């Protein structure tokens, strides 16, 4: 019944294989930009994967998921600033703090539903954003440069770009694996049931609130991990990573790739960041020359193309890229 060779499986394999080979390719052409860009993709894909757990599988549309990127990052940045650069202290602490924030935010937000849930998660994220802005000891608006990446002794050197990249990739694949196990477990069935019909779940005997809260905390912790990695990648943390538009980007990545699909967020992140890089470049080559006389450069407004593109995906490809492939797979099936 289950076919192994389908387009959606094939794309997931190609993307993962491609990511595994990035450092080899980067070394081969002697260009580190592609490695840095891929590291960023992988890290944001972890955040998107964690958002997919609550949004795609649990139906909890959090519009404040970037907050955890900031929380994880700030724990690393603040500790580094205070002279504690051991990763063995920074990382667990960052995850615990992210989990605690998710616990409080979730405990309050999950009492609401629908649009109210979206707005309240947004409100919490904005609060945390403004806390970041007001942290004058840690750079406030301007952010905080991290002088030393997290230290893990002889275990791994995060300043080695290739080693760091593979660490991020391992974290991503680990996250995807965890989400896969979670959503198919009894716990995951409850989460999916609550997405599908929360009233019915309670009628047949599930106290759904506590299951959703646990799910929310797991996703927040995973988002915190992405924040830890992001801070180490950029050697910098600022409130900007928590801006509400960043939360919006994460939602777009998940929707673009395919909500409730295991590899959807990863594919969506690759597509989103690739478009973000490629659109201005392509537009500069193709459209800009026609506007030289007017002295404007359309490539600066590349979102003009991205926006309608996303609209098309939402309107005509429900289920995102993954959903599109799944539909083609079904058609091929006799």
């Amino acid at each position, binding site marked *: 019944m289950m076919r192994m060779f389908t387009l959606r499986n094939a794309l997931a394999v190609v993307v993962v294989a491609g990511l595994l080979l990035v450092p080899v390719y980067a070394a081969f052409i002697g260009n580190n930009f592609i490695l840095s860009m891929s590291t960023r993709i992988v890290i944001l894909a972890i955040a998107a994967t964690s958002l997919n757990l609550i949004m795609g599988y649990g139906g909890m549309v959090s519009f404040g998921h970037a907050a955890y990127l900031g929380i994880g990052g700030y724990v690393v940045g603040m500790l580094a600033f205070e002279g504690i650069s051991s990763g063995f202290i920074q990382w667990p602490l960052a995850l615990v703090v992210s989990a605690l924030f998710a616990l409080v935010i979730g405990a309050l937000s999950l009492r609401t539903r629908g649009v109210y849930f979206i707005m309240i998660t947004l409100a919490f994220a904005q609060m945390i954003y403004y806390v970041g802005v007001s942290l004058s000891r840690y750079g406030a608006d301007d952010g905080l440069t991290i002088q030393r990446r997290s230290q893990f002794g002889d275990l791994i050197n995060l300043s080695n770009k290739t080693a760091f990249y593979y660490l991020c990739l391992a974290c991503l694949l680990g996250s995807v694996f965890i989400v896969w196990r979670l959503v198919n477990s009894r716990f995951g*069935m409850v989460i999916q049931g609550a997405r599908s019909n929360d009233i*019915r779940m309670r009628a*047949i005997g599930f106290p759904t609130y506590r299951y959703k809260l646990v799910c929310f905390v797991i996703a927040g912790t995973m988002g915190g991990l992405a924040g830890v990695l992001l801070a180490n990648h950029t050697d910098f943390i600022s409130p900007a990573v928590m801006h509400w538009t960043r939360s919006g980007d994460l939602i777009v990545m998940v929707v673009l790739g395919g909500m409730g699909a295991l590899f959807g967020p990863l594919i969506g992140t690759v597509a989103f960041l690739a478009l973000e890089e490629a659109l201005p470049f392509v537009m500069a080559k193709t459209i800009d020359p026609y506007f030289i006389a007017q002295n404007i450069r359309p490539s600066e407004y590349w979102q003009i193309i991205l926006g309608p593109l996303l609209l098309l995906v939402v309107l005509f490809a429900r289920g995102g890229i993954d959903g599109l492939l799944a539909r083609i797979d079904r058609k091929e099936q006799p």
Partner: protein
Amino acid sequence: MSGLLQVENLAKRFGGIVATDDVVINIPEGELHAVIGPNGAGKTTLIAQLTGQLMPDSGRIRFDGTDITHLPMYQRSMLGLARSFQITSLFLDLSVLDNVSLAVQAHAGHSFHFWRDARQQADLREPARAALARAGLADRADRPAAALSHGEHRQLELAMALAGKPRMLLLDEPMAGLGPEESARMVEMLRALKKQYTILLVEHDMEAVFALADRITVLVYGRVIATGSPDEIRNNPQVREAYLGEHEEGVVHD
């Protein structure tokens, strides 16, 4: 007289509208008790209070001697009070078997199991398949719930109610929207279930109610105007005037 389900002086108001007015119902173990009444009589409001979806303003509900008036929905379900919904309320994007498995899982201890694949666990899937078979849906197990017909949705509702190993079924218009053939099948199914479960049946289909019920309660504007055996109800002048008069006469005479 102490029944499995005792409703004592239940009242519920929505603004100026009295949806449930001093309702008293007593259902002994093993009885199939039907609640009938014209549209807007407050039947669904009553069921919602019995399951805990709505809280009554006053009065008391006892289940097997336990006061459940203020218990939340899931705890009542745990005590063995299972409900099927009037408006089909399923997990449409999950498979038929998943729907019933969830109902089994609800009664299989807590669900904070994060790792093992729930779809491979025989202690969930086997009882689920058995319940599906009893509701006549064995061959539909792997279809998505959304792909079933309306009649099959009602059967699935029933399978889910059964899967929770309930002591009592609260069936909210199981016949709603069914064609004559499907209705007849549902009546047969309920007749079979009647032997094992105490059932509260809210139903519009008079023929089915009079064929199945041991006793009937008639609700009009939230108030109980009569309770008794089908024969007593049939011959009760108050009922005929208040309720049955609105329908074509033929329905009450068999």
